[in-house]
C-alpha cells in the first residue's frame, strides 16, 4: 500500500506511516481547530493497513502538545490498533513524552487505562 507522509505545521504533527519500512509515527504538536479533518487520512490509512498488517506493528507517538479535539482522534487511532491486537496481530503503542512533562505522562496513563492493547510509556 502507499505510504503516508504528512509534513508538520505549527498546528499539526509530522506523520509517517510506512508499511515498507515498518515505521509508524506521529510526532510534534497537534492543535488544529479541525482535528477530525486532519486525522481522517490517518484513520483511513490505518483502517486499510489493518486488513493485512506486518507481523509486528510498533506505533510511536511523541507529542509536545495536543488539544482536546485531537484527543478524540487519538483515541480513534488507538481503538483501531486495539482492534488489530484483538484480532491476533502483534501491536504495540509507544507513548513517548518529555520526562519532566507530568501532564503528558498523565495523559498517556489515561489512555493506557482505557485501552486493551500493549501501551508503553516512554519518558525521553
Amino acid at each position, binding site marked *: 500500500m502507499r505510504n503516508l507522509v504528512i509534513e508538520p505545521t*505549527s498546528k499539526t504533527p509530522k506523520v509517517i506511516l510506512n508499511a515498507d519500512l515498518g515505521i509508524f509515527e506521529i510526532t510534534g504538536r497537534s*492543535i488544529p*481547530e479541525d482535528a477530525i479533518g486532519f486525522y481522517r487520512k490517518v484513520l483511513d490509512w490505518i483502517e486499510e493497513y489493518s486488513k493485512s498488517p506486518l507481523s509486528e506493528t510498533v506505533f510511536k507517538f511523541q507529542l509536545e*502538545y495536543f*488539544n*482536546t479535539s485531537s484527543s*478524540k482522534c487519538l483515541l480513534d487511532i488507538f481503538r483501531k490498533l486495539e482492534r488489530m491486537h484483538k484480532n491476533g496481530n502483534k501491536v504495540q503503542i509507544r507513548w513517548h513524552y518529555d520526562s*519532566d512533562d507530568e501532564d503528558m505522562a498523565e495523559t498517556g496513563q*489515561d489512555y493506557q487505562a482505557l485501552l486493551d492493547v500493549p501501551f508503553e510509556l516512554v519518558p525521553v
Partner: protein
Amino acid sequence: MSMTYSYYKNMQLNNIIFVYQGEVTADLVSSILQMVENKLEGEGEDRKVKKRVFNVMVECLQNVYHHLDALPPTDPSNPVRDKTALLMIGREEKDYYIITGNHVLNDRIPDLKARLDRINRSSKEELKQLYQEVLTGTGFSEKGTAGLGMIDIARKSGQRLGYDFHPVNEKYSFFSLEARVSRIPEK
C-alpha cells in the same frame, strides 16, 4: 490620542500581556498562540509552567472560536450582530490568567452554568474521571468536544474557573471565562 497613555497605564496596572477585541478566526488564534509562546520563551519562564499556560490558552481560544461558530446567524434586528470576542492574557506575581469573553444565547446559560459548576465542584480525581467519560462518549451528552475543553482547562489550571454572564438583551448575554495557571511549579 490623549487616551493612549491611560490605556497603557491601565494595561500595565492589570499586568496584561495581551488583549484583543474583534473577530476570532483560525489564523488569528494561530498568531496569538505564536506570539504569546515567543514571549514566554523569551522571558525564560519555567518549562512546565510555559507548557501549561500554552495548553490552557489553546483550549480557551479554540473554545471561543468553536463557540462563535456554533452561534446561529443573528437576527438583523438584534443589536448583537457581530461575532466578536475578547481575548486577554495576563501575568501576575503568582499566576498567569487567560480571560475570554463572547456572546452566548441566553437559552444556553443554564447548561453552561451547570457544567462549569460541576467542574468547579470536582476534585482532581473526579475531573480525571469526568474527562475519561466525556472522551469515551459516556459523559455529558453533547455534540463535539466543547465539554472536554473546559474539563481539560480545569485539570491543567488546577484552580477554579471564574465565570460571569452579563445580560446584554432579552436574547444574549456576554459570557466571560477566566482560567488561572500558577507560576510556581509544584514540588
